């Protein structure tokens, strides 16, 4: 390097030492540790430790109140056996599955339809409809739950608009209604992301296909879908994760009822822990959720890490 100054070989640093100091930048610096420590200390104390603790807690007899709230201990596989024969748990798992799959399907389909139609619509239409969908997405879950409850209960907005004022949609089809509410509250995100991805599709590709007399279905299947696949995968995984953890919306709308119809895993875990006081059993149900979330999470890492 011409810019390295000539140095007296006796008193100053040697040429090879200068080379070393130039590489100094890429060496480990102790201050990096200081910069990382606060964030990772928080993550370890309030994420990794509780996660490990939850694994143990799930195999104990801890309760919220009573003698086993103070004197509790390891009970081995007792809770696991209970889980195996707990019909409420299996129906909750089933409801969770329906809720997640329904949310994903609805969000992807409605999000795509909105994104592709809005792209071709007039600006004023795009502003109004896009705005409404984004407002629905931004609305905090508690508020969304409130307004969906009001709209779908007897005498609510949907009943009035459809001319059957006494129909109680929420009581008649609880799982369907909360799934639709969940789709409603997440579509805005999918619409924005897919809109951005659609705009990145080179128009030449679609024009070329049109010249070749490809039908619009063929254009969608052969060109748009393959190019949109990474975006769609990300939306599917995130929607799945968010639906799995969706406590607030359903809790406000139905509290898991009527009966156990909408008692998805987060609500069932809460119910066992804080209504029936079985803290340990609630934690075990929480662990089932962590396992499901980890499966989604691993795929999510795989597609996101490529972009790092």
């Amino acid at each position, binding site marked *: 390097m011409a810019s390295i100054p000539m140095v007296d070989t006796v008193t100053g640093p040697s040429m090879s030492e200068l080379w070393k100091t130039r590489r100094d930048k890429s060496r480990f610096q102790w201050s990096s540790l200081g*910069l*990382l420590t*606060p*964030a*990772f200390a928080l993550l370890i104390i*309030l*994420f990794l*430790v509780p*996660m490990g*603790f939850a694994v143990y*807690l799930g195999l104990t007899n801890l309760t919220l109140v009573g003698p086993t709230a103070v004197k509790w201990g390891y009970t081995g596989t007792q809770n696991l056996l209970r889980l195996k024969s707990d019909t409420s748990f299996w129906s909750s798992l089933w409801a969770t599955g329906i809720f997640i799959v329904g949310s994903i399907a609805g969000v992807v389909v409605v999000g795509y*339809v*909105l994104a592709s139609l*809005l*792209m071709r619509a*007039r600006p004023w*239409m795009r502003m109004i*409809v896009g705005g*409404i969908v984004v407002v629905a997405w*931004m609305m*905090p*879950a508690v*508020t969304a739950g*409130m*307004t969906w409850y*009001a*709209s779908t209960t007897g*005498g*609510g*907005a949907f009943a009035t608009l459809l001319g059957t*004022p006494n129909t109680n949609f929420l009581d008649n089809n609880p799982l369907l209604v909360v799934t639709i*509410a969940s789709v*409603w509250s997440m579509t805005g*995100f999918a619409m*924005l*992301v897919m809109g*951005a991805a*659609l*705009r990145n*599709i080179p*128009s030449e590709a*679609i*024009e070329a296909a*049109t010249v070749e007399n490809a039908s619009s279905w063929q254009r969608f299947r052969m060109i748009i879908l393959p190019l949109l696949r990474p975006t769609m995968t*990300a939306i599917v995984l995130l929607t799945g*994760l*968010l639906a799995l953890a969706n*406590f*607030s919306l359903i809790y406000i709308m139905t509290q898991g009822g009527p009966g156990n119809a909408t008692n998805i895993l*987060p609500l069932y875990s809460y119910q066992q*822990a804080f209504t029936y006081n079985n*803290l340990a059993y609630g*934690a075990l149900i*929480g662990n089932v959720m962590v396992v499901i979330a980890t499966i989604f*999470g*691993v795929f*999510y*890492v795989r597609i*996101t890490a490529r972009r*790092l």
Partner: protein
Amino acid sequence: MSEKDAVATAVLDVPETPITSVMPPENRQTQRTKVRSVSLHLILGGLGILFLAPMLWLFLAAIDKNASWGIEWPHFSLINFKHVLTGSLLHSLWNSVVLAVISTAIASVTGVFAAYSLSRRKIPFKGPLLLFIIFSSGVPLAIMVIPVYEIFSRFGFLSILPTAVFLSVTSLPFEVYLMKNFIDAVPTDLEEAARMERASTFQVLRRVVIPLAMPGIAAASIFGFVNAWGSFVVPLILISPANQQPAPIAIYTFLTLPKAEFGNIAAYSLVFCVPVFILYAVSSRLFREGFVLGGGVKG
């Protein structure tokens, strides 16, 4: 929950201009395109109405002095807002502010240090650390609430401040991920120039990196704020004193009252939404301006 706006904040840089060229060139059949355009707008209008319908109650009942669960033309009055912006309900909103501000401050400050370090420094096991950050940014950490409850109750932590710390952890991974991506985009030239002047790490961060990555840091902070602001299950379980409960719990408490005050519920829920909508508007603007980092380095 608010996790939903997680990755979304990262993709708000949606350009406004449409690409009309996606429309197939069908000059011969202008009649057909016109029919198509009309039906397209009709479908969109229908979808818009379907998305608007569930919100109608919220807006109409809030300004109706004798509201019910139903929708009707309101007896216009602002009395509901006057009712809910007093006493314990106002105090709950204040608690929400405290909860959200503290958790955002913790997550953003610790997050920016970690993000800088992960972006610029050579760190052993950097790959696994980044994978851990991405993983925990995707997995909703609020599902950890039962073990955290047990830990907090042992130490007598079931109050607003420790809860704010836990909420900061639930948004920390995504904030780190977002800020790291922004710091990656900041040119290193300015930083090296500052190093030449013997600036310390802290000075480099404060004077160079943080100002340049400000749009990303602001967006990450907004994400953290909205996440804490909207959280319901975490304060429900982790905060035990009634006078420390934030607004979402107050909204839920409305439902447990023997006589439902519909207008008040709607007005309060609407007030609760306002900060979120304002911050969304700010963040989408930030992202439009955010990627203009040129001009800092001359020549």
